[in-house]
C-alpha cells in the first residue's frame, strides 16, 4: 500500500531515504505500524516528538491504512 510521509524541521533529511519518492510517497507492506515505518526510514524514535495521521495526533503503535498521510515532528522550542 501507498502512504504519504511528511518529515518536518530537523527530520526532513530522513525523506532522502531511497524508499521515499521525490514527492514524499512510500510503498509499504500491510499491515504496518507508524513505528515500523519510522524504522524502515531509519528515524530514531527518540527524535520523534509528535506524530500525525491524516492531520490528527497519533502514536508509534498505530496501524496505518492505504492512502494515509503521516506527519513526523521533532521537538521544536525556539523563540
Amino acid at each position: 500500500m501507498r502512504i504519504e510521509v511528511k518529515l518536518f524541521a530537523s527530520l526532513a533529511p530522513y525523506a532522502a531515504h531511497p524508499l521515499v519518492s521525490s514527492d514524499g510517497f512510500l510503498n509499504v507492506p500491510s499491515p504496518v505500524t507508524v513505528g515500523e515505518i519510522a524504522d524502515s526510514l531509519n528515524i530514531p524514535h527518540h527524535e520523534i516528538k509528535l506524530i500525525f495521521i491524516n492531520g490528527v495526533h497519533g502514536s508509534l503503535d498505530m496501524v496505518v491504512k492505504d492512502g494515509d498521510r503521516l506527519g513526523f515532528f521533532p521537538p521544536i522550542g525556539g523563540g
Partner: protein
Amino acid sequence: MMTGLVTDIKARARVIKNTLGEDVMTVSDKVIIDIAEKNGLKIRDVGLQCLEQGIVPLRYLRNGPAIGIADQIILARSQVAVVGAGGLGGHVILNLARLGIGKLLVFDPDTFDETNLNRQALCNSYNLGVFKAEEAALQCAQINPLLEVSAHVTRVSHPGQNHFFTGTHVVVDALDNGKDRLTLSAMAGDMGIPLVHGTVAGFEGRVMTVHPGETGMESLYHHDPEENCAGSAESLLGTSALAPALTAAFQVMAVLKILLKRESMPSNSFLHLDLDKAAVHKFFL
C-alpha cells in the same frame, strides 16, 4: 471639560479621502499629543476619544477597512502581554504597536547580544547589552505614542506571578523553552486568559491558540519540558530572520481574531508554517 475636549478635537480634525475615495475625518499624532498635554490627559485616552468621535488618527487610516474604526476602538481598549522579546517577541511587539493595541506588557529578563542580530527585530548594533523589555518599550514609544507600554525585566516562571496579567485580554508566548511555556500556559489558564503560542526552527514555525481549560501546550511539551538544547530542531537547524517574522505575523493575527471576536483557530489545533516548502498545514492534537 469633556465637551470642550471633543470640540477641540473636532476643530482640529481634517477631512481626507481614504483609499476607497470616501471622506474620513482624521487627526494627526501631533494634535492628539498637544490636546493631551494641554488638558493634562493621557495621550492614549485622547487617541481613544478621537476614535470614539469617529475621527481616525492618520496612523491608523490604512488599517481600514480591513480593521474598521469599531475594531480600532476595541484594539485601543485592549491589553496584550508579550512574554519574551527575542526573535518572535520582537516582531510580535512591533506589529501590535503599529496595529494600535492600547496597552502592551513586555516581559523578558535578558539583554541583547551579537548572536541576536541575525533575527531579533528589536536588536541592532547600537543596543547590545540593553535589556530587551526596556528596548521594546522605547521602540514602541517611538513607533506609536498613542500606546502605553510597560517593560518588565523579569522571567515569568511561577504561578505567584499571575497578577502580572491582571486586566490582560491575550497573552502571547514568545518564549524559547518548553518548561516556561508550560508554566505560562497554566498561568494564563488560571487567569482565564487566552494564550497564543509560537515557536520556530530553521525555516519553519508553529502557531497555536490555547483557550482557558485547553491542554494544547501540555500535548506539545509535557514529556520533556527541559528539552531546549541538543535534540531540539532549533538547535539542529538554527533560526534565521525569516521564520520568526512569518510566525510572529500569524501569532498577531491570532491575537487580532481573539480581540475582535473573529473566527479563531479550532480548539486543540495548530498551524505549521514551512517557508522552504511554501506550505501551511493544520494539525489536530
